[in-house]
């Protein structure tokens, strides 16, 4: 099928974009387009106005300011996958990126697009939840920062008003010797995961865990952090992680059911993926990275 007609806008600055979003109705923002253009072609969405933000250079910056990595909404997945800054500080993101779509979709797909589209099985929003990212939102009414814990407003619904846009995502890296793990199960490489998991661990010189973060995705409408299991890890020896307990905690999370995948199967996968992610994080803890 072909996209229904729409008016096409290509703002060059953040101010122009903010102005357009205030004045247009039934408008959609076009970022990398790897989900939206497919939805347009299938006429699943029929906006009157399409606002292409690919020409706004201010949205495509990737930089380190102080201890924080700031990723512009329009930074491409391909760029992130090959950026030394990301490899050094956010290795779990690099590992997740290898599972995002394919070479041809990563060339155009952006981190901001993934985080606004919010497919429940998407890897990048889940990694933002895992890393406690902060979302900088902008618009004619000004800037505001939304913590990851408030970003997921509902199924495929980010905490953005119609006149707002995502400007950048800020992430504070964990210490240099943190352990990280990522695991997902998908029917084919590059598909959205059925279920995936991510884990971060930090330990002191004696091997006692000081900080832990765990996330599941593909299970419910939005990525799920496991605060109780995280708290239980803190203070335990990394060598004595209770993997069976972690897998049970993962299985006990809220699970959706759909035509292809039952809740029971998702729960089973959740236990296995969580086990694999934490195991990988444990193995990398306090290791020098190449």
């Amino acid at each position, binding site marked *: 099928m072909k996209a229904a007609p*729409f008016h096409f806008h290509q703002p060059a600055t953040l101010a122009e974009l903010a102005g357009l979003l205030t004045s247009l109705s039934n408008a959609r923002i076009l970022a990398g*387009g*790897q989900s939206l*253009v497919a939805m347009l072609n299938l006429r699943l969405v029929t906006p009157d106005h399409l606002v*292409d933000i690919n020409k706004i250079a201010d949205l495509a910056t990737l930089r380190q300011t102080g201890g924080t990595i700031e990723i512009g909404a329009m930074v491409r997945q391909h760029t992130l996958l090959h950026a030394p800054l990301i490899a050094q500080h956010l290795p779990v993101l690099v590992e997740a990126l290898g599972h995002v779509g394919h*070479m*041809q979709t990563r060339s*155009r797909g952006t981190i901001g697009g993934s985080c606004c589209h919010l497919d429940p099985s998407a890897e990048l929003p889940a990694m933002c939840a895992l890393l406690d990212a902060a979302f900088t939102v902008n618009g004619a009414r000004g800037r505001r920062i939304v913590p990851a814990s408030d970003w997921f407003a509902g199924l495929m619904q980010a905490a953005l008003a119609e006149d707002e846009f995502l400007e950048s995502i800020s992430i504070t890296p964990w210490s240099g010797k943190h352990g990280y793990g990522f695991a997902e199960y998908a029917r084919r*490489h*590059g598909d959205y995961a059925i279920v995936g998991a991510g884990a971060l661990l930090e330990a002191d010189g004696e091997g006692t865990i000081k900080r832990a973060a765990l996330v599941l995705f593909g299970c419910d409408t939005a990525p799920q952090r496991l605060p109780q299991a995280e708290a239980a890890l803190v203070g335990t020896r990394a060598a004595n992680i209770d993997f069976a307990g972690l897998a049970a905690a993962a299985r006990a999370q809220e699970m959706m059911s759909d035509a292809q995948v039952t809740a029971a199967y998702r729960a089973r996968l959740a236990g296995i993926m969580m086990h694999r992610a934490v195991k990988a994080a444990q193995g990398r803890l306090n290791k020098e990275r190449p």
Partner: protein
Amino acid sequence: MTAMLTLTVNGRDMSAAAPANMHLGDFLRHVLGLTGTHMGCEHGVCGSCTVIVDGQPVRACLMLARQAQGARIETVEGLAQDGRLSPLQAAFRDHHALQCGFCTPGMLMTLTALLRDVPNPGESEIRAAISGNICRCTGYQGIVEAALAVATRNEASTS
């Protein structure tokens, strides 16, 4: 809603009008008459429409023609030079890497992009690169062998 576009396709400057809702694949085929780029699913899952835009492989069905203003596009029509197949195209013929040929332009453009970035990829890199391209005929084996043959030749010529 129609606007004039100027862009470079296979090294030639071109200019033509495109409606806002036309994707790059239809623009190449129906407006520029370059029918080598094949449209399969038109929603980003089959990879048959892959072209190279500013050096990067992209799905032509997931990019609007208007977004290609000023871009440098390479399509399968640009691979052969002076009537001679590119090394990858020749390897496709030698290794039976195609039957019906529907997926072939997308496979060629994807692997051409890969081989520029990584001149000597291994089998797993090749398989990962074409994981976004569906072939209903070959079982992929011949395609992988063709790409490996070019990779091996590249290695021999650099060592």
